[in-house]
């Protein structure tokens, strides 16, 4: 029999549990359970065809990954992908947002144009860029030849040295509009009195941007960067369609490696280990980012 206090407390919280319950059930079924399943699977061998998993192998799948140079290459590529993409995406997005926050002719049109790649189908984008980068009749090499820079023509996606930069370039082109929209919304929400006060105090445009606007935008910049980092670490479709991780693993990232291990090599256990590492990586970065944000003067107030 519950005490009166306990009954009151239950009554007080019942509505909360009732409202949160369905969401928690869905979360548990579609997020917690699959993650747990994946973690448990990463300690097993399984080819993915039989209903029952193979034997428990402990940390063997992780050990195999540690000794697999393709895994390290994929990890490095994922890190390079994020390290190059995020600053470009957020940096360019911020510059464009600053530009479009001013009173420009055709400002709305420009905003729309920059956002178009975001809403375009990724498949369409990758097919277009495959054609752009095609070495013989592709738009880029044709353009280079037309302007007398034929010496710079290159098999962009066919050369391990340029394949990853080419894929990153497409990713930036596709996503910069997304950063732009978030950052533009942030800029428009800034307290105008602070900006005006800086102007009255004689701050020039450069000082205003660097000393006033950028610090105020820090939480939003951090959020945009976080989204870009997570998106970058998870990248699969773009790489898979454009290069399938090749040539010679030069564009292999963790997500494409996961797919290859699971569905081409039938190593479901190893693929799950890659998935666990990927999730751990994403969660760690998110946590670091949150800690940094919390320590900043504007932390968590965005």
């Amino acid at each position, binding site marked *: 029999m519950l005490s009166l206090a306990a009954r009151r407390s239950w009554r007080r919280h019942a509505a909360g549990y009732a409202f949160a319950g369905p969401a928690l059930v869905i979360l548990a079924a579609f997020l917690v359970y699959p993650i747990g399943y994946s973690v448990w699977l990463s300690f097993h061998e399984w*080819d993915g065809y039989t*209903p029952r998993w193979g034997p428990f192998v402990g940390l063997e799948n992780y050990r195999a990954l540690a000794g697999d140079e393709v895994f390290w290459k994929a990890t490095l590529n994922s890190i390079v992908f994020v390290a190059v993409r995020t600053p470009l995406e957020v940096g360019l997005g911020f510059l464009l947002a600053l530009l479009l926050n001013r009173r420009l002719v055709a400002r709305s049109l420009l905003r729309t144009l920059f956002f178009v790649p975001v809403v375009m189908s990724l498949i369409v984008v990758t097919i277009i860029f495959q*054609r752009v980068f095609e070495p013989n009749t592709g738009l880029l090499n044709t353009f280079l030849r037309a302007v007398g820079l034929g010496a710079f023509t290159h098999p962009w996606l*066919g050369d391990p040295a340029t394949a990853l930069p080419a894929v990153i370039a497409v990713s930036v082109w596709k996503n910069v509009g997304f950063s732009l929209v978030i950052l533009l919304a942030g800029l428009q929400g800034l307290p105008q009195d602070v900006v005006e006060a800086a102007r009255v105090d004689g701050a020039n445009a450069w000082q205003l941007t660097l000393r006033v606007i950028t610090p105020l935008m820090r939480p939003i910049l951090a959020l945009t960067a976080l989204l870009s980092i997570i998106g970058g670490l998870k990248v699969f479709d773009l790489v898979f369609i454009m290069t*399938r991780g090749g040539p*010679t693993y030069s564009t292999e990232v963790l997500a494409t490696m996961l797919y290859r291990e699971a569905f*081409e090599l039938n190593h479901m256990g190893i693929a799950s280990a890659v998935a666990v590492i990927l999730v751990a990586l994403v969660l760690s970065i998110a946590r670091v980012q949150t800690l940094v944000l919390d320590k900043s003067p504007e932390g968590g107030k965005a």
Partner: protein
Amino acid sequence: MSKAKRRTHHGDAREMSRRKLLQLGLLSTAATPLLRAARATAQTGGAQPSASKATGELKNPVEFKAPKVKASGPTTISFWQYVGFHVDVQKFIAEEYKKRHDPNLSLEITAFPGLNEQRVGVKSALAAQSPTPDIIAIEPGAYAVDVSASGSVIDFTKVFAEDPEYKRGFWPNAIELLTINGAVVSVPAVTNTVIVYYNRGVFQQHGLEVPNTLDELKKIGAALNAKGIMPIAYPAGQDRNFPIFPYYTYLGGIKADKLMREADLGLKPWTSPELVAGAEFVEMMAKSGLYAKGPLGIKEPDAIQIFATGKSAMFWGGQWMRRSIRAALPPNFDLGIFPFPAVVAGGHKPVLSSVGITLTVNARSKHPDLAFEMIKAITGAWGKIEYTRNLGLSPNGPISADAIAYQMQSLKDPLYPEFLKLQPTGTTRVIFTPAVEEAVTQGMQALITGSKTPKAVMESVEAASQKVGARKFRTG
């Protein structure tokens, strides 16, 4: 059903399937002499005849045989495949089957956008012990090994034993390719070849002849390059199979296919001189100036465009691309094909051959007999004539001169009979061990980009092969 009960049920199913496997194994042992005889026939010939001179409105000269089993009530069997352009003809045959033989039976086809997507879907269905799909399209090689080794599909041995004529309808080497651990895993719908398409107009304009030897091909390449025409559009960036074509070609040209198969099964080293020579050939081709620039950055549609616009004089590709190539060509384009020239002095011209899409039955299908009957309708004597007539792909197995005349009535493509003539010289292009296939693909990419030596490539393939250890399957 409780968990314990479910376990018992699955256990019984496994016992049943073991017993069934044993029976089928015995059957297959009994059928071995027949298989040997059939194989010998294939080695001594099997060329398709020329079309007969028959005129007027022709009909399929082969009888569409009635099935042994029919549906007792309205039944739909499901079929998951991965080649969209085959759907229409599969539907056509299924509808004819329904109309003529079994009005209760319908075929529901799901065409996945590609092999990868279909394989993922099939894998999930099989792991979940789903009875759907009833019929599965699989590729020879690693895919066939996977579904066979996991006991997910039903062996054709019994079907063949009951209907030897049906079995004789296939090229024996194709059936051999689809035989894993003594069980015939699936049956082919067509045969595909890899050849060189060429622009006859450009060849004539520059006084070039179809090459018979590698040296002649190199001379043609040099002559074309001097005129500013790229010699061969080769879409090595299309998928994981394309970068291996030159390697398969060389091994076919020196008759080292068997050695490659043994290496694939871990019985011979990949560092054998012949297999390293194959890698050297791939490297030589990449450096020869014969390919359009950056083959690994070229996909099929790009290569077709390069060829169709006259920027390259040749196109190294498969018979399955004939339609897309034709569709891209201007009306006055004179298209020809030739087998890849002999890769060694006095050698034969290697024509890569594969069976492409093959069909099998899900071991958990609720209508396995009906599924087998549907597969027999699609791939049987009548079905294969209709199937290949619609697609312009070569049938898997011999067809008559009258049948070819009937096909040509609607196909009208002069290349079709040429493809038919090429079949018997074919050599297969299949690797069974996934990790080995991956290592070969990556190795060939490294050779094309010049980032590894042939010896280093074959050493890495051998390392991958050794890592797999003893294979749990045998082929043929």
